């Protein structure tokens, strides 16, 4: 038969194929498993790196948000300080009120106490905080270009 020129040789060929596959089987290098796994871990790290990039973006967003808040607080219109020129008028009003009514006097005293004891110290603290935030904003704005230049 033309398709099967040497059918008698087949068992011999099959035996040789099996024997030589076993005989010439290469020994698996002991270091290769670790090398392969290191390459796979490196590949896995490559896939997780975009998450770190995203975290970096979020950090900048957070810094920007804080800077905006600081800017807003710094530029918020603070209550205008009482002008000294108004003081004599107020004093005269108090005198009139004191003369007119004990109740009104009591309420005036309360308002004054409130202003002196509660509002003024807070106002001072708010002013001080505003100054600090302005300084922080100034510092952040000065630092930002340096950070960007370092990247």
């Amino acid at each position, binding site marked *: 038969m033309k*398709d*099967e*020129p*040497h*059918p008698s*040789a*087949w068992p*011999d*060929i*099959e035996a*040789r*194929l*099996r024997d*030589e*596959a076993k005989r*010439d*089987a*290469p020994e*698996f*290098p002991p270091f*290769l*498993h670790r*090398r*392969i*796994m290191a*390459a*796979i*871990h490196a*590949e*896995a790290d490559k896939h997780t790196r975009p998450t770190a990039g995203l975290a970096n973006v979020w950090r900048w967003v957070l810094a920007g948000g804080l800077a905006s808040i600081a800017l807003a607080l710094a530029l918020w219109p603070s209550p205008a300080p009482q002008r000294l020129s108004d003081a004599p008028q107020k004093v005269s009003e108090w005198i009139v009120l004191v003369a007119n009514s004990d109740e009104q006097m009591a309420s005036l005293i309360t308002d004054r106490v409130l202003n002196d004891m509660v509002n003024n110290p807070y106002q001072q603290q708010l002013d001080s905080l505003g100054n600090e935030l302005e300084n922080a904003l100034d510092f952040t704005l000065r630092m930002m270009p340096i950070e960007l230049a370092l990247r």
Partner: protein
Amino acid sequence: MASSTQCQADSSREFGPTERDTARAEELALAIAAKKGCMESFEQLVARLEGRLYAFLYQKTSNHHLTQDLLQSTFVSAYRKLHRYNPQYAFTTWIYTIASRLAINHFRRKRLLESEHADGVTHTTPSSELIASEKAESVWSRARALLTGNQFAALWHFYGEDRNLAETADVMNKSVGSVKVLLHRARLKLAELLPTNDTH
């Protein structure tokens, strides 16, 4: 690192009656877990298959360094494309296909480079000639030179890895009939050459 839920292999899967069926089912469960992101499962798959794939690639290349590089590329490529693996097919089928394609691409590139930079000079030493002649005597070397990629792969899985027809068909993602035809043609080609040249 993957969570424990990702690493839970599907133990409810029914195992076949033979040892190979059990191994295949285990490999499938590991592949599914690895696809879900379990690195430990993927490492187990590497440990299970690296020896067989090394022998398979070595038969194709006859070069240890090249085989090591190709084997590493095979597993890295498999890891990268794991999301595309279809568990309907055996994991071995998929990874042997990747290994074969990488080897084919390598030799294609090499041929291209050689044709571009052909200077007609060959650097041989007596020892390298002796090794080359010994290798050329090997029935597998002749098979590699003589057969097509599919014929060689069928021959290797059937005789080299001692698989039966169904297992060979499974690994090659072909029908049993196709594998029979491939083996028949491969044996014919070898029979044409070997008995006349060898006194074995």
